[in-house]
């Protein structure tokens, strides 16, 4: 059993920037990551030992190793603060929604003049259908330790991504979870993170951005400094 880390990082590919950011800040952190597809497909369950990973051997091995390293059965019940990107996985959720050309009409957006629209109420129920189990997991974890859900960066020119992100954030906050949105601290006037904080793929944040997010969370008292 080794010394307790300062942070546990749980999530999909967006969690990588957080882990790298923690490394840059010299904060001891452990991680459990697997793909957004795995999270979307609900390859997880809540068992006797808390979170279990199903059908992803690499991630299951990562969790097993973490348990051994920390010497506990339920790593998320050990009191270590958790940063997580679980619950979004927009790359799996949003594209199918648009297969038939649907867009959600946002109040502050220009009127949709082509294709089909779906109401925000419908989109909300659609999200809840696919994310109900994720929210349940997050609520369970939040009862055991400090848990902060970190919102992924906004992406340019992708219909419905903003709408779905807003809905998920609203739902997470609605069930009492703590949500950190880097756009509130680090984004420019357009609401997007500056290019220098974004990885080349235009989807994920950089390690530096991850460090800035953690620093902001500590500054705001969401995480103990």
């Amino acid at each position, binding site marked *: 059993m080794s010394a307790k880390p300062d942070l546990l990082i749980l999530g999909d590919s967006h969690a990588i920037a957080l882990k790298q950011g923690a490394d840059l800040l010299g904060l001891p952190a452990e991680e459990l*990551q697997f793909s957004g597809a795995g999270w979307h497909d609900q390859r997880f369950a809540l068992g006797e030992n808390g979170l279990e990973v199903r059908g992803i051997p690499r991630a299951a091995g990562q969790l097993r190793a973490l348990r051994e390293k920390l010497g506990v059965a339920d790593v998320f019940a050990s009191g270590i603060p958790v940063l997580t990107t679980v619950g979004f996985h927009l*790359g799996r959720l949003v594209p199918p929604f648009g*297969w038939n050309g649907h867009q959600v*009409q946002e109040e502050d957006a220009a009127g*949709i003049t082509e294709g089909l629209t779906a109401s925000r*109420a419908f989109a909300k129920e659609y999200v809840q259908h696919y994310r109900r189990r994720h929210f349940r997991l997050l609520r369970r974890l939040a009862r055991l330790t400090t848990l902060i859900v970190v919102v992924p960066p906004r992406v340019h020119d992708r219909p419905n991504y903003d709408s779905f992100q807003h809905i998920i954030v609203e739902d997470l906050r609605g069930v009492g979870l703590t949500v950190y949105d880097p756009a509130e601290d680090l984004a420019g006037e357009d609401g997007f993170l500056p290019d220098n904080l974004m990885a080349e793929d235009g989807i994920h944040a950089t390690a530096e951005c991850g460090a800035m997010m953690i620093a902001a969370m500590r500054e705001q008292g969401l995480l103990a400094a």
Partner: protein
Amino acid sequence: MVEKSDNPYRHLPAKAFWRTGVAEAGLFGLSQLWSSAWTLPADAQFVTFGSCFAQHISRALISRKMNWLNAEPAPGRTPPELAQKYNYGVFSARTGNIYTAAQLLIWARLASGAAGAGSVEYWTDGAGLVHDMLRPKIEPQGFVSRKEAEASVASTARAFARCITEADVLVFTLGLTEGWINTATGQSYSICPGTGVGTFEEGVHAFHNYTYPEILRDLEAALQIMWQMNPDLHVLLTVSPVPLVATASGDHVLVATQYSKSVLRAVAGDMANSHAQVDYFPSYEIIAAPSSRGTFFEPNMRAIAHDGVDLVMRHFFAGLDLSAPARRAGTGGDAGRAAVEAQMQAEELVCEEMLLETFNER
């Protein structure tokens, strides 16, 4: 014995006489009730709209794997119960029930661009949610804003336009003569304001029992707009056999029902007789004529039993002529979906590659 002279009746087929056509044939022996006026391509595209009974035609076409166009389907991967809750997949666009010819005319005008979504009446409820009075029950709770409600009406109008321009056959089921109108704006309502959605205002909202000339005029106007958009569109009219739930006419509901159905039946027949591109399918007669002895009505004598719908659709498919060569190749929808799947896979690869990068300690 008196010799019968030759006359036109001597040359009529068995179906032209009640004894041989109905009485001796029996309910399930009825034949040649309808044969399509048109020879359609094997892959003829159908769209369905109208009153509640039209939903049965949508379902039957789908279950037979016919080419039923759903121009406003639910978003991809919508669970069926959610699609149903939000009225997706009921008709070929999300119009909700179109009970009257006046409402069909409104949709035709919206689809053609002659009217915009702003011309529809909207009502805001006590919770601040907005409802369009053309489709008052289309959203379970209502829209969050007027802007969203108008966007939804416009979306359905585009889908309705696609139905008109792409379909070979529009099946329209006439449901009601009775309706409610706004005396100030002329807006036609699908349900009486105050019966769930809207607030009834005496003097503003008025009962109107559309007459034969009005229905004929509105239907003719709607179809003329549609034919301007698609001169090849065939229109198959039916009349819903489902009786009225209630009448505001002052008559007994039984009498009002018979009046309403008779007027609609007459309009449909006259439209079919006067336009080569309009035909009439006798779903009303199959269910409601004396030959069925009311067999297909549920105990409430209003709802139509599943067996009745089956019989109607058996006659429909028996009379359909799809013997012309198919005209369409694939629609390209699958290719578009495959492209999005490929994009999702590619992004997944990007993400997985990023996970691998975490093992790069250099």
